[in-house]
């Protein structure tokens, strides 16, 4: 019996796929998956053979991939990593608030707000221009040296503050781009209904702007997770500093590799979430059309 015999009558209100065609497509999908797996396995085998044949490999294995060192340093590193996580959890909301306020300040039009606009612009220009590690040095060593009354003297505090200031400038630009991505006709429609400029921002522009910038913001979060390690230069024992201590104890670099793995374990899930959100936004925009 041919496949055509199964076909519904023309005009029937059903979706119909030729069964022979469906079988062919399934077969092809299976073959593609098998080829992909085989190719991947071959690549890993060849690459590890090549690396393990290099003359220096035994020494590298001993100093970077040492099982005992790994097991010995891992719990301490994990403990120290808790400080990185705390720095991140405190810095991130502050960065979001600062970034949003600065982005909004830069959109203020009334002449009375000129000073606010100028301050916001200068802040973004300056802090985007300075390497984050330099901001950490300058704040972490500079401010405590002023010996101001009532100002904390704590390296973690100033390291976190430096991260907030540095990332706040970036995030402000992300928000500003998001505000710019909302079509002017939306603002026009809101104003034509009698909504004030502030109400238009609050209810019409910002909700759409924030939605548009969630993927790039997640990207900055991932970057911030890693940059919490920069606070190590001020001395607090977070994961990088702990790895340094462990490494210099035995002249073995395995703790660095262990620290790297811990960072990866935290960033990979977030990277996947960011990718997923990005593709979802793209899909929505394509499906959305004009609105």
């Amino acid at each position: 019996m041919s496949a055509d015999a199964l076909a519904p009558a023309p005009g029937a209100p059903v979706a119909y796929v030729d069964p022979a065609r469906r079988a062919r497509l399934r077969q092809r999908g299976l073959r593609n998956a098998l080829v992909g797996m085989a190719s991947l396995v071959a690549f890993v085998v060849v690459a590890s053979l090549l690396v393990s044949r290099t003359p220096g490999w035994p020494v590298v294995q001993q100093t970077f991939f040492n099982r005992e060192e790994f097991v010995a340093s891992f719990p301490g590193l994990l403990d120290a990593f808790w400080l990185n996580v705390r720095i991140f959890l405190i810095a991130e909301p502050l960065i979001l608030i600062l970034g949003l306020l600065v982005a909004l300040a830069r959109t203020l039009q009334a002449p009375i707000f000129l000073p606010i606009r100028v301050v916001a612009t200068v802040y973004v220009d300056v802090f985007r221009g300075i390497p984050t590690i330099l901001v950490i040095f300058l704040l972490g060593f500079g401010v405590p040296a002023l010996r101001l009354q009532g100002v904390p003297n704590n390296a973690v505090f100033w390291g976190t503050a430096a991260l907030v200031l540095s990332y706040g400038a970036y995030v402000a630009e992300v928000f500003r781009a998001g505000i710019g991505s909302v079509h002017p006709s939306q603002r026009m429609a809101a104003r034509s209904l009698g909504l004030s400029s502030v109400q238009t921002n609050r209810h019409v522009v910002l909700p759409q702007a924030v939605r548009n910038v969630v993927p790039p913001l997640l990207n900055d979060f991932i970057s911030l997770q890693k940059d919490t390690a920069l606070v190590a230069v001020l001395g607090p024992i977070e994961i990088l500093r702990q790895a340094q201590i462990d490494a210099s104890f035995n002249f073995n670099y395995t703790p660095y590799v262990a620290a790297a793995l811990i960072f990866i374990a935290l960033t990979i899930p977030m990277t996947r979430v960011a990718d997923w959100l990005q593709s979802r936004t793209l899909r929505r925009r394509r499906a959305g059309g004009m609105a």
Partner: protein
Amino acid sequence: MTDVLVRVSQVWKAFDAHPVLRGLDLDVARHEAVVLIGASGSGKSTLLRCINGLESVDAGTIVLDGDLDVTDLDADLDQIRRRVGIVFQSYNLFPHMTVLDNICLAPRKVLGRSHQAAADQAMGLLSRFGLAEKAREYPDRLSGGQSQRAAIVRALAMEPEVMLFDEITSALDPLLVGEVLDAVRDLKAGGLTFIMATHEMEFARDVADRVCFVHQGVIHEQGPPEHVFSDPQRDETRQFLARVLRP
């Protein structure tokens, strides 16, 4: 003329060096339905935007209800826009809100209505325009005709004294034009004052109290639709009508 609701006098407007409105005059009486026709770029949309204060004029005055001058540089434009509704070609619904929230936003935030009062009024209007089941939908689930009717409802919810329709059917599939025009017809029957820029000549003939042919930034010819369409006095009007009415 008695009871002039909108008086446009000698309005000039240029974009860069390109003059669009060149000393245009127009009086619209209360309950009058005025339809603007004319080629693209003749200044119809610009005139409507100026009446709503979305564009500022270069010279001339636009006075609402004999007392409120839109063109006064110190005018409270938010107050003017409360009294003048506008509907655009591209609907411009807010995509992150349901249809109901789109409609309730301005009455709540600008007029200070309660949630309940705004929603009740919105549901009344939505039912009147056949959109009651769409109240909880987001705009991307609506057809073009439904979107445009929702945009009309959103403007009406502010209870404006005059409505401006800026080529509201130009972006629509021809099959959906009728439902939007029926909505406007319904408003006309209810006595709403409106000014409409359109290319729908049949509709203009049918519904307008007065048709104005806009040409080179002024109203070149105007009158009751039967006069303008059947017996145009000016050459430019005749040429324009010959072009748009030829099937």
